[in-house]
């Protein structure tokens, strides 16, 4: 992807991603960022090389002589089963290059009855995604061109990756691939870019509190509901 990305997940997050110890919800966010970011992908490759070097340096453990036969037998069994059910064997087709990250598309598809938008206010829609963990609410947010999200502050931490279009807040402008972190206590009011709608992926760890006068109307919608 060719656009300039200005905000990246911090390096220790990328290390945990490479080591496989990052929480599921954050793994989803980092994975979405990597889809857009060549630089982070290239550092991830080096980190994976480091992991493989550490694995190779370790003292090898004894393996039972018969294990190779066991494995070959399982491989044969699986291939036979595949041949027998040929009609239903589905070849994973790599859909036409889509501008969304693979992992996000898969989450959208696999959320029950497929993910659906619900309206938060005249310019903001949300679609919650099923991710099989309960620490964060993972969702897509869609902000129409020039639309304003309700002003809110956070009791929990919020990670956001811009998937499409751009948005801005009091601090900066964020475009495709940018990775944002909002800490508890931060108050902000994101605004969609003027020219097109903006879609973001976000992971939110605790209820956010609305600060605008009519905010209470939104409240029921903004309780986090991990799924």
């Amino acid at each position, binding site marked *: *992807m060719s656009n300039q990305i*200005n*905000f*990246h*997940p*911090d*390096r*220790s997050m990328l*290390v945990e991603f*490479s*080591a*496989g*110890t*990052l929480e*599921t919800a954050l*793994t989803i966010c980092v*994975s979405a960022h990597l889809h857009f970011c*060549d*630089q982070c*992908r*290239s*550092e991830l*490759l*080096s*980190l*994976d*090389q*480091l*992991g*493989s*070097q*550490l*694995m190779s340096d*370790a003292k*090898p*453990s*004894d393996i039972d002589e018969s*294990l*190779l036969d*066991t*494995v*070959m037998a*399982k*491989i044969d069994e*699986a291939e036979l089963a595949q041949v027998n059910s040929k009609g239903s064997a589905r070849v994973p087709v790599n859909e036409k*290059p889509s501008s969304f*990250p*693979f*992992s996000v598309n*898969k*989450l959208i598809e*696999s*959320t029950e009855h497929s993910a659906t938008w619900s309206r938060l206010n005249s310019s903001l829609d949300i679609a919650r995604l099923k991710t*099989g*963990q309960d620490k964060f609410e993972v969702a897509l947010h869609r902000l129409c061109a020039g639309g304003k999200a309700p002003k809110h502050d956070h009791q929990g931490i919020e990670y956001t990756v811009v998937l499409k279009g751009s948005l801005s807040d009091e601090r900066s402008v964020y475009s495709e691939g940018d*990775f*944002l972190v*909002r*800490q508890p206590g*931060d108050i902000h009011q994101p605004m969609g870019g003027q020219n097109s709608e903006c879609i973001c992926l976000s992971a939110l760890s605790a209820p956010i509190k609305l600060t605008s006068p009519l905010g209470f109307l939104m409240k029921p919608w903004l309780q986090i509901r991990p799924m």
Partner: protein
Amino acid sequence: MLRKIIDTVDKPSQSTAKVAVLNTAEKRSDEWSLLLIAVGETRDRQAFAKLFKHFAPLLKSFSEASRHQGWYPGLSEDLVQEVMIKVWQKAAGYNAEKASATTWIYTVARNCRIDMLRRKSNTQHLPLENEDYWHEPDEETPVTLLRQKRNGDKIQESLAKLPKEQDEILRKVYLEGKSHAEASQELGLPLGTVKSRVRLALQKMQILVSPEFQEELPHE
């Protein structure tokens, strides 16, 4: 045997895209990558047996090092089996331009380990397998084979020279599978110290190439 594989790979009659790539100046010539290519292209069982002999003991050791919550020793052999079966099944998709066989197999093992732990500890249905998060966009990789090779050599060389406390932390993170927070608890060190030790180690190995990166830091 290796000779035979190299011959097969070099034979012009086998001119698939991957072979053509290997004939360019930037050859990936390490033994394991050639064997993995042979498994992917011709389902070569002897090549697979050689990979197994080399990697299964490493995978078992990797798995035994795991100190994840919910991990127990019996899972180690299961992991070896599951990873090697995946290696066979996915070998056709191995792209020698993107990673060495060792790195590729490490990522398969890491993803399997996470999936096994999730399956054990989670009662909810998980929509994605871990490897889905590592799905790469289909485009030319910006990292050349040559640079990867240099990186790999540099990492190997400088890893051996790291101060003990940096080496210890990398092993905790990658082999035992501890998050930075868990490592800080265990070592009785502040989280910031753990993070900076990791960062120092990565800088020494020249893995961090973009120190000027803007990160979204806590806003004070």
